[in-house]
């Protein structure tokens, strides 16, 4: 028994109205996942959820969320995620759906994938820019996407850099 292993699921929350994304917080997301697992898998699922499940990271600007599940039962809990149709946060019901992008064994691998994915998104945004200033900002953001010791990442639309500690 060397190490306790978990699976980190990188999901993207898609909403129809982008301004609703900013109202999300990690407790609301955790509550929504727990409720969905209890609905689909009953008491067994609800019990599994309390082992090592938590929301490790939530980025409200892009809707990216890292969820941690125990390795032995992550597929079962993952199969309940498509059934989430809305998240309730601060009294408001936000209709959305979860889209899983990557499953990793550690936070670091998920983070590397997220940086590559965000770089791709920035590349796709480049032809849609309206003026030179935005193009310059996106090019700078693409060049500064690296995994440093303090885990810097860049956003897609606001182009601010955000620091995140593990």
């Amino acid at each position: 028994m060397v190490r306790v292993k978990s699976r980190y699921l990188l999901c993207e929350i898609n909403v129809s109205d982008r301004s609703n994304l900013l109202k999300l917080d990690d407790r609301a997301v955790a509550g929504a996942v727990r409720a969905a697992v209890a609905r689909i898998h009953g008491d067994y699922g609800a019990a599994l959820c309390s082992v090592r499940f938590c929301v490790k990271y939530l980025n409200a600007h892009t809707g990216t969320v890292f969820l941690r599940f125990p390795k032995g039962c992550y597929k079962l809990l993952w199969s309940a995620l498509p059934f989430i149709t809305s998240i309730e946060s601060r009294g408001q019901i936000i209709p959305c759906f979860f889209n899983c992008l990557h499953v990793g064994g550690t936070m670091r691998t998920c983070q590397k994938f997220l940086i590559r994915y965000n770089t791709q998104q920035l590349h796709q945004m480049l032809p849609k820019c309206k003026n030179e200033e935005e193009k310059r900002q996106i090019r700078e953001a693409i060049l500064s996407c690296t995994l440093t010791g303090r885990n810097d990442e860049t956003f897609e639309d606001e182009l601010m850099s955000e620091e995140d500690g593990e």
Partner: protein
Amino acid sequence: MLKMFAPAVGFSTVAINYVFEPKAKKQEVPSPMPITELIGKLPMVQGHSCPIRVLNRLTVVMSEASHFRPNASEYRPFDLLAVQPTTEKLFHAACMLCDVDIICILVTERLPFFFKRAPINGSIDRGVVFEVSYASALRDITMRRYTITNAVCLMESCKGKNVILSSAAEKALELRGPYDIVNLGLLFGLSDTDSKEAVTSTCRAVLLHAEARKTASGIVYTMKSQQEVLRDTADSEAPAAKRPKST
């Protein structure tokens, strides 16, 4: 709106389904709207450099044998043909005889019949696939139970081969990403590899089957030729010595 989410989530081909349920006599088959009218510019698929491909598909709900007429000319504008049989005899006929690509499995109510191995094996040989749709499972609890029951019954008889999972999504938020659907396949009783195939290679096989169905024995594909017009303009531009060969 749906079309905006589909390429962002990672699908490279999308089919728009027109459900046709002939209740009255001589009801006309709906004709599909041209795709350029629905959305102007096709968005790019996430992670690829080509735009999304949009196809038209017709689903005929069969409650009698006369509802589906093979080789009818009204079916020509549709790229994919699907049939939804409601009784055992129709299911047998659809598996062995009907010239379709997809057979839809009822998910909104209890199956009135059991699946038998013989017609299912016959359809696997012909290349016809069975389709389970998951959008009704997302809406309602009883629908979810019927979906899982019917899907598990199907998987027992067909051993996981020739199955596709599709969303019958009516709103943008009823769509799910491909990895999520692969996981949903595990709930329906498919194994890991079968579930992944249900979303990727079997779907591509259906598209190829549909194209082959339109041709004559899979070799010749006829379409209106614009070659006559092109040849005339080429002749007038090229100098007399270098006339291109006519194809």
